[in-house]
């Protein structure tokens, strides 16, 4: 038996209350506890200065520790970060966020009914994807993670396309090869989602390097959860973006929870994720991720900086994962059930709605009408999607297609295997 000599090691530690010096991060509240978000530092709305987009990193380091907010408690815009969006854009933003939420709710229910195998909602985080897609140019390239469905919605993708992917049916963009939500959209400039975490970070840096090499003014943007910043790929992406001053907007969506792992386990206990950028030599901005206008404004700032040759920016979106990690997760096992109700930055849809109401450009009635319209859109889209096939009924993709795209051209050994599968299928039909 191996025993480590000396005091304070794992061996001599008492159960439950270890005496060793090893620090183990603890979330402030577990199931049954009162939620406690006192660790979330919140600046007053409008309090953070907006520097010139080409400012030196050293001069703007406080952007990483404050919290950029535009909407105040009275739902009005305040301060220098106000992007001064016109009413139409605000209403469109609200529509996209609500569409995203209603799509998510429907697909979650369809998973529960066994119609799709899996789903991941972005409940509570809708502002991140929607505001950012709107602040970036349509030809900017997006490298999403798996909770960015709002990017597709805000770039005008039909719900049928997304639903058919989740159904792995005959209209599935992935041809049945990927689990639900791992979308891609070449013509919409949205990259293919991997199930593996953080891989998109260096890829986005590389895409942006290529844009710079080619002399284009397109930029890239990418997203990662705060938990995945522990992966090496995150640090590769940060390093390459910094070394080559790549025109890329790097986003850490800090939704506090990575399945059961709270943000302290990714290094969030003693510093803000945005601060991490300073070690690499580029700016970090910490933003209220549930404030549509603030997210829009910081994205616009970072995008302009990148386009003008100022290099990368890291944006930390402070938000909360209001739902389970996925349909396979049960958060009541590891966090208080009512935590989201007490999240101090509220709900992104509700906050933009209230802002429009304060402006006199929206009302509860109009909201109900919009929700009804979008529900009908979701329902119609789902019906249309089902007609293209379901997991266990209706039309199916040609099973031989599973051998396509392994390589550009089918090699001999795969042709033989396809023949063997065809033979198995014929036996079945007999």
């Amino acid at each position, binding site marked *: 038996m191996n025993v480590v000599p000396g005091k304070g090691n794992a061996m001599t530690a008492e159960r439950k209350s270890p005496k060793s010096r090893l620090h183990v991060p603890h979330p402030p509240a577990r199931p049954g506890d009162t939620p406690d978000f006192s660790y979330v530092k919140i600046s007053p709305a409008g309090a953070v200065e907006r520097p010139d987009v080409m400012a030196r990193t050293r001069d703007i380091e406080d952007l990483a520790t404050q919290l950029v907010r535009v909407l105040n408690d009275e739902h009005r815009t305040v301060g220098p970060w106000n992007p001064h969006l016109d009413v139409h854009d605000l209403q469109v933003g609200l529509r996209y966020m609500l569409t995203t939420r209603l799509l998510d709710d429907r697909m979650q229910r369809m998973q529960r009914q066994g119609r799709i195998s899996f789903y991941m909602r972005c409940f509570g985080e809708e502002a991140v994807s929607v505001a950012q897609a709107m602040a970036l140019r349509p030809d900017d390239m997006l490298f999403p993670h798996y909770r960015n469905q709002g990017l597709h919605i805000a770039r005008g993708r039909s719900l049928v396309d997304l639903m058919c992917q989740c159904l792995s049916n005959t209209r599935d963009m992935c041809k049945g090869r990927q689990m639900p939500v791992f979308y891609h959209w070449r013509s919409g400039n949205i990259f293919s989602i991997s199930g593996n975490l953080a891989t998109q970070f260096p890829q986005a840096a590389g895409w942006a390097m290529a844009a710079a090499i080619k002399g284009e003014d397109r930029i890239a943007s990418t997203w990662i959860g705060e938990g995945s910043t522990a992966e090496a790929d995150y640090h590769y992406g940060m390093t390459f973006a910094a070394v080559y001053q790549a025109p890329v907007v790097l986003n850490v969506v800090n939704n506090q929870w990575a399945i059961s792992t709270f943000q302290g386990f990714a290094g969030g206990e003693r510093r803000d994720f945005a601060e991490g950028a300073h070690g690499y030599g580029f700016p970090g901005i910490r933003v209220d991720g549930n404030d549509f206008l603030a997210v829009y404004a910081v994205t616009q700032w970072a995008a302009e900086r990148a386009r003008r040759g100022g290099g990368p920016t890291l944006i930390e979106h402070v938000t909360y994962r209001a739902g389970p990690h996925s349909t396979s*997760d049960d958060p009541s096992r590891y966090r208080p059930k009512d935590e989201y109700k007490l999240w101090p930055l509220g709900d992104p849809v509700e906050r933009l709605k209230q802002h429009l109401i304060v402006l006199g450009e929206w009302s509860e009635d109009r909201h109900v009408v919009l929700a009804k319209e979008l529900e009908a859109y979701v329902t119609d889209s789902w019906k249309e999607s089902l007609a293209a096939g379901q997991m266990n009924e209706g039309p199916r993709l040609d099973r031989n297609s599973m051998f396509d795209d392994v390589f550009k051209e089918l090699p001999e050994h795969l042709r033989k295997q396809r023949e063997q*599968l065809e033979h*198995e*299928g014929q036996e079945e039909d007999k």
Partner: protein
Amino acid sequence: MAQMNMIQALNSAMDAMLGRDPSVVLLGQDIGYFGGVFRVTDGLQRKYGEHRVLDAPIAEGGIVGAAIGMGVNGLRPVAEIQFADYVYPAFDQIVSELARLRYRSAGEFHAPVTVRMPTGGGIRGGQTHSQSPEGIFTHISGIKVVMPSNPYDAKGLLISAIEDDDPVVFFEPKRIYNGPFDGDPNKPAVPWNAHPKGEVPENYFKVPLCKAEIVRPGNDVTVIAYGTMVHVVEAAVRITGVDAEIIDVRTLVPLDVETLVESVRKTSRCVIVHEATRFSGFGAELSATVQEECFWYLEAPIQRVTGWDTPYPHAFEWEYFPGQKRIANALRAVMEAR
């Protein structure tokens, strides 16, 4: 003895080891407070404290790298990779470090690390939750590779793996966590308590590494398999009525060549089955070994039954999976060959 499914058996193995050896520590994502996404480590942090069962950041390379450091400093770490599909960020730490540490330091350093990971498909996991990468690891010199096919072996082999002073990569076929699966997805799930190997001693016991098991004795053909495929092979043998000798490899490296060779010399025919892709898969190694040792005894070419050489497709899981029919075809082919 108790009735256990594979999850409970693995949990019981780690419980036994944490209890008897204070140098054993577990680390991995979501394994502590939450008890693991498949519940394999449920309750162990509560019982042994959070310095013995550590929640880890999402960093597979970090988990294995830290486990190596702990191992060098006298602990006996059991690292969990949440899905085998996510082991690749840790690949360098496993291949270049863990596997070679003893060799490159001429025996002065070693790290007795066990790396556990759920593996295999049939759970609608698509290309990122279904892979069987065991063949990649069997190609590396310096690590042992284990894959149990039932709760009894899962517990006994995991205890052996943890106690082993060499690094072990321990694959857990997740399709059979809750019950043996015969390859027919339309049949209702069968729990482990209806299976003799669902009977598992509650206390410490070992199943030796490097020892294959004859699951079904027979005379006409030797079928070599491991993990989930052992159960699919049993079903395929039943439907074909062939008197097959089924061997569960259990430890892929170091391989129990003797048991395989003895069987094939008796039956003169051999079918090799695994769920992983075919090309350069572990089946190729098995086939080469059997050919080298049994060439003059063989009555027919050795057959391999495997997943196709494509990524695991979400929509065509059962067309991809080497099910009863594909195995039965191979059994018939090898029996008909002259």
